[in-house]
């Protein structure tokens, strides 16, 4: 080719090549594609959970765009005159009436509405599972701490997106949800009442809130989510993806199929699978039947009124507060039944947000980590995670305390007291059990690496001795069991001025708590000594 005359070269080019050259000469995309397209993406099912969240978000965006064509975010009063008989002639807001029209009088409207809602639930659920994967494998460690913060912010934004969307139809359920929010805001000392009036444009419920939430729901929050998702993904490319330990996998490389063509094709197909699953669910299962709930009216409240699942933990926290925490002092009402849950949940959220920085500080570890931990190999972190999950799960379950009571024939008081115990004592129990289980699993791993699997084959030696033959691991499997790091508690050392600060003492005691109980990975020497032995 290089020797051919340049005048004839363009004629020999295929159309694809010509088009590529045309585009590249004008955009310089080649370098970008070369860089990104050859990026290796390690293959593991748990690495796709973030993609599930992303793809459900795309479904939310597409279906939501359709809904904006027909939804009218107005609280003006109208008499419903659509197809649904039990609401005919009932006075309601335009928002509610237009949602009913979407459900009953616009072709495909109910399907898209249900798909939007189911996809939103899946979006937040997938984020939750994705975060658990990141946490328990330590994938938030340097250099990914900031991406953890961005991801967690996305989780909070997704909850805000969900809640604003839940409130838009202006049906009884969403109005009850807003009434609780209003109550929580008013429970905040000093600024509460002012904030509530600011938000609702006067006394709750007012006539402004749906329009305001709509602006947040379709403009501000999606813009923030899209921007943060973009940064989140750029960081994934910049940091490269983590991978599990295995032969040939190091802190310096990433082993897996390249993005182009294999990975991109798989991910593209995966999007349509998720779209299909959501379409199937939306076509078969009712979600948020606003026609049952009817228009919002501050007087009725339905039994079984709950927020969508991702707000459940906050609702549960309010339900678990014992009676009598609200009292009058200095001529003011102090709603500790609201202040305490807000503080506790705020503290919990902050703790999750900054956990990567706390762990890095306790470890005093400034190295980069690209090999994901197996949860058992970080027993204290895994135990802390289990405690957090138990705490969250207790609050979450409390949001359905009434359903638990009716469906398991229990008393409401019994359910509440049991869940109070789960939320307060449960995390400690979960912590200790998980830590012991992790350490026991590590011991088992050591045993297997050193002595192999018990094969169940009993052999009689010439001397008359019976032994069970142990099957040694092959090297590939062994690698996965020995390639991890352990830390030892930090020593307290005087600083440059010869002083031991309080911070250092705290750090040392935390470090001791983290790493006092530990199982070291099998070393090469131990391995060789083990193999020279009796088998």
């Amino acid at each position, binding site marked *: 080719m290089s020797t051919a005359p340049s005048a004839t070269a363009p004629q020999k080019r295929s159309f694809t090549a010509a088009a590529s050259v045309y585009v590249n000469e004008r955009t310089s995309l080649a370098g970008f594609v070369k860089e990104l397209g050859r990026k290796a993406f390690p293959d593991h099912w748990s690495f796709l959970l973030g993609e599930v969240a992303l793809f459900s978000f795309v479904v939310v965006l597409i279906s939501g765009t359709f809904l904006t064509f027909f939804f009218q975010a107005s609280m003006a009063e109208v008499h419903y005159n659509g197809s649904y008989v039990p609401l*005919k002639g*009932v006075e309601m807001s335009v928002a509610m009436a237009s949602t009913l029209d979407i459900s009953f009088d616009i072709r495909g409207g109910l399907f898209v509405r249900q798909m939007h809602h189911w996809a939103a639930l899946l979006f937040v659920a997938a984020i939750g599972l994705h975060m658990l994967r990141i946490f328990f494998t330590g994938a938030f460690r340097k250099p990914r701490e900031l991406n953890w913060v961005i991801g967690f912010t996305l989780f909070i934004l997704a909850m805000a997106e969900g809640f604003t969307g839940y409130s838009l139809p202006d049906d009884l359920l969403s109005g009850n949800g807003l009434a609780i929010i209003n109550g929580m805001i008013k429970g905040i000392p000093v600024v509460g009442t002012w904030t509530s009036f600011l938000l609702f444009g006067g006394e709750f419920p007012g006539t402004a809130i749906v329009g305001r939430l709509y602006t947040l729901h379709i403009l501000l929050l999606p813009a923030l989510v899209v921007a943060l998702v973009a940064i989140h993904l750029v960081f994934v490319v910049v940091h490269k993806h983590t991978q599990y330990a295995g032969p040939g996998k190091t802190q310096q490389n990433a082993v897996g199929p390249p993005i182009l063509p294999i990975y991109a094709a798989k991910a593209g197909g*995966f999007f349509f699978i998720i779209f299909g699953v959501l379409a199937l669910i939306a076509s078969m299962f009712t979600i948020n039947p606003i026609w049952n709930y009817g228009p919002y009216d501050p007087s009725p409240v*339905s039994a079984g009124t709950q927020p969508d699942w991702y707000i459940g933990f906050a609702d549960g926290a309010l339900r678990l507060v014992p009676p009598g925490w609200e009292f009058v002092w200095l001529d003011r009402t102090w709603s500790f039944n609201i202040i305490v849950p807000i503080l506790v949940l705020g503290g919990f959220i902050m703790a999750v947000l900054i956990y990567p920085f706390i762990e890095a500080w306790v470890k005093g570890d400034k190295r980069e980590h690209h090999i994901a931990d197996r949860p058992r190999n970080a027993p204290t972190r895994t135990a802390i995670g289990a405690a957090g999950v138990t705490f969250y799960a207790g609050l979450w379950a409390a949001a359905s305390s009434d359903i638990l009571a009716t469906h398991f024939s*229990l008393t409401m008081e019994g359910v509440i007291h049991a869940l109070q115990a789960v939320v307060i004592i449960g995390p400690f129990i979960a912590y200790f059990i998980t830590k012991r289980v992790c350490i026991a699993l590590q011991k088992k791993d050591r045993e297997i690496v050193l002595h192999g699997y018990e094969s169940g084959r009993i052999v009689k030696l010439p001397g008359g001795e019976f032994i069970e033959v142990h099957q040694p691991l092959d090297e590939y499997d062994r690698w996965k069991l020995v390639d991890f790091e352990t830390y030892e508690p930090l020593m307290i050392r005087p600083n440059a001025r010869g002083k031991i600060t309080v911070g250092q003492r705290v750090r040392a005691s935390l470090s001791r708590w983290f790493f006092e109980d530990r199982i070291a990975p099998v070393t090469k020497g131990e391995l060789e000594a083990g193999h020279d032995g009796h088998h």
Partner: protein
Amino acid sequence: MRQSSKPVNRKNHMTRQKRRAGRRHPLATVALLALGLVFTGGAYAALSAGTVAQAEDDPTSQQTIDEGEKLFQANCATCHGIDAQGTDTGPSLIGVGAAAVDFQVGTGRMPMQMQGPQAPQKPPQFNDEQVKQLAYYVASLGPGPEIPADHLVNGGGDAANGAELFRINCAMCHNVAGAGGALTEGKFAPPLTEVTGVHIYEAMVTGPQNMPVFNDLNISPEDKRDIITYLKYVQDNRSPGGFELGSLGPVSEGLFIWIFGLGTIVAITVWITAKSN
């Protein structure tokens, strides 16, 4: 004679032997009991069939009331007292009216299976005629709410008005879709998904278990008819959105998306990242 008498004797002998053996058979008592029960039951059935025939002519006749009294004394008096005056274990039934009895006995809540926070619904112990006999007996003890007329309970009213009244007056315990809900201390508001119009009406006017009474000044008979119309609409028309998941609201929706939605998708992630063999 001899020739002929011998076989006869032998036959008699054998029959006597057989009969003696039959009388001593271990199942003889059982058979006798069964026979006795069949006769008594048959006679009773014939008798009560006769009563029903008469009761249809005049539901409040003295004979209906007498039959009701017998049933009452046999099945209810232990707790409610021999004259329905009430005891430590059951309230007085004087003045509760026919509607209360028709609801409580007709839905199987009474006779109660055990003392507890609330009498659960169970298959009715009495047939319709017996329930009516009991109801008219109790109604004869003092004036009270009557069993509603058919035009009030057949679902021919205004569903939209009924739905609004239901949301305002009933949904806080029974849930907007009538799926039921929890009350304190193990009590509960039962689901209304399979309750008949008559029983809904009777429950409103008599306030069974923990339910308040909605008398005719509170909710007029026409409004009660509208509420029943709405509930019948919900019973007869399935959700346009597909399976209702129990009409329990966001809890069942959340469980569904976590277990079936995310469960399915995680299974798919495992599938598409599986190593090819």
